[in-house]
């Protein structure tokens, strides 16, 4: 088996026995990236030098029999939205093109402490806003299974990197499905932990009450390993949960007895692709064959999840992204041009004797803000900022934002009721396999509607996982989503592993 098809767990065993060194392993991945990433576009930057230096340090630790962290020498790709001290952290946005944070995100610190090798930074939708990685300001990422198609998003770079064998592990963020959905579309395993399970400190915020960091891997076991390294309470994040982290790697192999799997009536309505439906129904059958019982459940407010999400997420985003104004960091417009433009505007209004227009004319500062932001943000980000500003503005707050917060509670209550009857909920991750690049350009609403199966878990704060469960007629990966109650990540991983062991979907890889 070629090295890049081996799981992280297998690599780790080889590293521990000395069969391979971290430097050799890292170099193999770097070579593969150098050879093939031009076709995929998974990485925004690859840090060969830094990665090899870290790998050499881990090898030295092993040689000197010093303690080695749980990811001892494994390359990990990181979505370019987690701050890394002194390194560019762009969020795939022009506005942060030159930003170098003076600090590490907690997840980055934990990866370092676990002796991971930070191999490079992966592409994403600008500020994680999107489901196809097409809104990146810098490059398109292609789906390794079909280079004409998107890898999903917003963590499309991370998902594609793992699928393409550029890294055994990767970090993503999931605000409305941004880990699970690209995992499903790229045929890898991706997980969004319970909200608060992993620290958000240093993760550039998109929608703070929904954002969560999570792992990608080729197998459930690998995802468990990476989650264990990054999870846990962080005093720097007031929304992080002060709960012990179970030993996921030890537990993941234990099958669940008397497992009750719920399937959601509302998930199998119109709009679901036939191949996807067939694959998901087959997966339910696999669970039954493993001794689980299947239960039909209802999430009556699920159909409002997309509407709820597209009020709450843009509202929070409009606020979180207000800080990009060209004053303290990030892109600033050319001031000379700005002042000249302003003078020209003034002259024009004066000539036209437009008193109202003159009264409303931007001050230099306001024009500086407006130009900097408009130059720095792409269209999808602007659209969401506008949408959120509108939903929060005077006269609309109650009808949109406040209403959405109430429906959010109803969505959560649906889940609470459901988890009274079942242990896990299983269903599709997307209505259809990966779309073609550009397929939905110009139709943002159609793009938003693809999030129908994923956003509920973010609104309710639940852990969710997606793993491969089939191929479409065109050979595209199909993902199975599993959801569990808050903090039941161990159950989620064990349930996923049961399925994975009974099937072979995760053993096939795309040809590049």
């Amino acid at each position, binding site marked *: 088996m070629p090295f890049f098809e081996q799981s992280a767990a297998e690599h780790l065993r080889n590293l521990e026995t000395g069969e391979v060194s971290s430097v050799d392993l890292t170099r193999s991945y770097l070579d593969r990236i150098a050879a093939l990433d031009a076709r995929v576009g998974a990485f925004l930057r690859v840090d060969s030098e830094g990665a090899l230096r870290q790998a050499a340090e881990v090898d030295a630790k092993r040689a000197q029999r010093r303690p080695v962290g749980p990811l001892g020498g494994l390359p990990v790709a990181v979505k370019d939205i987690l701050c890394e001290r002194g390194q560019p952290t762009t969020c795939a946005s022009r506005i942060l093109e030159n930003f170098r944070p003076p600090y590490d995100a907690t997840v980055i610190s934990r990866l370092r402490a676990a002796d991971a090798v930070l191999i490079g930074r992966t592409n994403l939708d600008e500020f994680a806003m999107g489901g196809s990685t097409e809104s990146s300001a810098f490059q398109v990422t292609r789906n390794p299974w079909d280079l004409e198609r998107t890898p999903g998003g917003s963590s499309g770079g991370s998902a594609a990197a793992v699928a393409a064998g550029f890294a055994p592990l990767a970090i993503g963020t999931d605000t409305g499905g941004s880990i699970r959905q690209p995992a499903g579309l790229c045929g890898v395993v991706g997980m969004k932990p319970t909200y608060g399970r992993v620290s958000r400190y240093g993760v550039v915020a998109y929608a703070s009450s929904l954002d969560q960091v999570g792992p990608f891997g080729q197998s459930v076991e690998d995802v468990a390993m990476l989650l264990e390294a990054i999870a846990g309470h962080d005093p720097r994040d007031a929304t992080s949960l002060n709960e012990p982290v179970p030993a996921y790697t030890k537990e993941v192999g234990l099958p669940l007895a008397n497992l009750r799997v719920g399937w959601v009536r509302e998930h199998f309505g119109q709009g679901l692709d036939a191949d996807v439906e067939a694959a998901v129904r087959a997966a339910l059958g696999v669970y039954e064959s493993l001794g689980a019982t299947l239960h039909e459940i209802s999430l009556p407010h699920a159909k409002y999840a997309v509407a709820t999400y597209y009020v709450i997420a843009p509202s929070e985003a409009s606020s979180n992204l207000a800080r990009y104004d060209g004053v303290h960091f990030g892109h600033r417009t050319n001031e000379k041009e700005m002042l000249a433009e302003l003078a020209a505007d003034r002259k024009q209004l004066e000539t036209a004797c437009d008193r109202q227009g003159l009264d409303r004319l931007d001050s230099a500062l306001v024009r500086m803000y407006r130009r900097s932001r408009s130059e720095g943000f792409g269209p999808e980000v602007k659209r969401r900022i*506008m949408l959120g500003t509108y939903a929060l503005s005077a006269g609309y707050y109650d009808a949109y934002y406040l209403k959405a917060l109430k429906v959010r509670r109803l969505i959560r209550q649906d889940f609470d009721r459901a988890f009274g009857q079942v242990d896990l909920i299983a269903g599709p991750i997307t209505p259809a396999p990966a779309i073609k690049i550009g397929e939905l350009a110009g139709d943002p609403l159609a793009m938003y509607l693809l999030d129908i199966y994923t956003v509920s878990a973010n609104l309710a704060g639940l852990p969710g996982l997606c793993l491969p469960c089939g191929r479409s007629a065109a050979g595209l990966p199909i993902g199975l989503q599993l959801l569990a109650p808050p903090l039941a990540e161990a159950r989620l991983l064990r349930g996923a592993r049961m399925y994975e062991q009974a099937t072979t979907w995760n053993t096939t890889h795309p040809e590049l």
Partner: protein
Amino acid sequence: MSLSRVEVEKVALLSRLRLSDAELDTITADLAKIVGYVDQLAEVSTEGVEPMAHAIEITNVFRDDSSSESLPREEALANAPHHDTRGYLVPAVLGE
């Protein structure tokens, strides 16, 4: 609910965005479509339902009042697009 262009321009100012006429056209149409979709929330009965602002509802999270090292000024200002080594510079804010 339909969004007028004037409303969209007001939202653009509140958002500190400067949109070209073409952008305003597109975004007015996009927002109208999205807001039209979102309007379905109105049909949900939410009487007596408490708003849910956080995904996981915890309370009373504090840190101790101990001061820690600040950033050296150079490092604090390193990302500023325009500074004079003492502080951030912006077009005059007088009269704002």
